[in-house]
């Protein structure tokens, strides 16, 4: 590796997916215990470990704990995940021995639809009893979102995906139905003494979103090339753009070099 070039890349020198990975990586605090899913989350944690968070560790829900893959896994069950892991365990360890018992600081997750409270749908389109389309289903998304201290969603920005209400709440945001009654309350009231935190940021191809004290989404930074109004126009709900703190920092040349030469040299997630 040549000297680190920490200059910021200019428009046209990086792809939207590169910025997604880099913006996500910047959410990792050194020392975090990170739960990551397949795809961009893997790129984000592996990049963070190389740039700013060398002491962060990664847990994959299939059971590899603190693996040090030398080849990028294509799924969380991949043989590559367990390379040099501190433990090659199973789901009981991942979900109960790590997550439920409280080790997990940060998690990267994805979703098909999100609402203004950060509730995410990965289950069906339309009425659950008469669905138009079935997605993969929850996987570990809601479990991790329930009990990790901070979670970050990486998503595609589209009007139909940023909705006032999602068709099915697969994964818990900040205001939720409390079952069996179904009254909407703050996440703190649903989880009681199990409450540890929740959705901290949503990163899309247009901007980075965060949540206010009431649990409502607002736009924090816009990616270079977009205006807050354009982002708002790509939301079905009335997005708060009064708290925009500036532009999202583009990737540095060093980050791009790491992404393409060390993290995903085979072009598995980065085409």
């Amino acid at each position, binding site marked *: 590796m040549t000297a680190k070039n920490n200059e910021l890349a200019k428009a046209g020198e990086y792809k939207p997916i590169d910025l997604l990975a880099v913006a996500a990586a910047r959410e990792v605090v050194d020392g975090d215990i990170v739960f990551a899913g397949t795809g961009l989350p893997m790129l984000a944690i592996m990049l963070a470990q190389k740039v700013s968070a060398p002491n962060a560790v990664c847990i994959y829900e299939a059971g590899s704990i603190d693996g040090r893959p030398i080849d990028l896994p294509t799924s969380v069950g991949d*043989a590559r995940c367990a390379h040099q892991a501190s433990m090659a365990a199973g789901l009981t360890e991942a979900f109960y021995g790590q997550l439920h018992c409280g080790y997990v600081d940060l998690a990267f997750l994805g979703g098909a639809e999100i609402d203004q409270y950060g509730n995410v749908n990965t289950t069906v389109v339309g009425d659950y009893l008469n669905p138009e*389309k079935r997605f993969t*289903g929850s996987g570990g998304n809601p479990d991790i979102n329930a009990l990790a201290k901070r979670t970050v969603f990486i998503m595609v920005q589209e009007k139909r995906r940023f909705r006032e209400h999602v068709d099915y709440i697969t994964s818990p945001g900040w205001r939720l139905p409390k*079952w069996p009654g179904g009254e909407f309350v703050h996440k703190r009231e649903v989880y009681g003494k199990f409450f540890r935190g929740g959705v901290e940021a949503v990163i899309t191809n247009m901007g980075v979103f965060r949540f206010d004290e009431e649990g409502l989404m607002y736009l924090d930074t816009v990616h270079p090339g977009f205006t807050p109004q354009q982002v708002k126009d790509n939301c079905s709900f009335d997005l708060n753009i009064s708290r925009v703190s500036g532009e999202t920092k583009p990737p540095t040349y060093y980050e791009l070099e790491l992404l393409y030469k060390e993290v995903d040299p085979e072009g598995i997630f980065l085409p």
Partner: protein
Amino acid sequence: MGKAERITLKEAGALIQDGDMLSFSGFTIWRRPMALVYELVRQGKKNLHLFEVNGGTHTEVLAGAGAVKIWESCWVGHELYGKLGEGVARGQCEKSMIVEDYSHGQAVARLLAGAYGLPFFPTALSMGTDILNPQYDMLKIAGLRDGSNPKIPRQKYTVSQDPFYDMGEILLMPAANPNWALVYASQVGDEGTMRVNAQTYTDAEVIKAADKVIVLAEEVVPDSYLRSEPEKNIATGYSIDYVVELPWSAHPTGSQGFYDVDADFIRNFYSASKSKAGYDKWAEEWIFGVDSHEQYLEKLGIINLEKLRANKVLGYSTRVKRGSR
């Protein structure tokens, strides 16, 4: 309980009855008992009740064949090689299949209760989600929570107050005890001791939770070999009922230390599975068009298989092309 009985793949398939509740080893597209799943389709099994911590290519092979009546799980797809579970989706949208959604961790809780002989297991995972919406209890809507089927609990879940430390509300998840665990294992000893390489997923729990266990072994080895490092083993011989020795029987899913996922094969299957006609044509070629696992391997061809063979040091193939570069 005696020693595991060595049987053939056809005999293993014949043990499964229409309507039985099944669960599987593995994780999405890793270590699935694929050869036996194909055999179940070849033998025309119907009305199967799958309980699985997560689904994968095997689920879709069964769902596409119309063999599944009830699917209780949290996820189905083919990871990077097929983003949805088309057969399950069709079954749910057309209402030919009852889909009962849990979260991953909740499904693990159900399996843990089953594995440890407990009626339920507590969890705080995925509270406040529509998974718990009482109007979405599909087995109840279907009238199947009346206690007449011993494999279906009377409630999807219940909420309880912590009686000991005042932690407040917590979910209780009912045990899952399938009739059968269909398992693929890296190595099985000649007395039945079982080992898997790398991540253990929920393989040990599935074996304990099920009434009966059939294991497809990549290789059968002397038990003394496995017993020289007992900490690496995940099941005893007396917990396993039947063993079929069948190399490559997890294909196209991967088996750490033996072979990688066959990405192209799964992509082709996924593409075919998008319609019933496409699935049927695929099944005609790869399930009904071969009469045995050996014929299936012959059809795949040695060149394809050798590309997937794992590097003995790394445990996965370094010769498959995985990305665009």
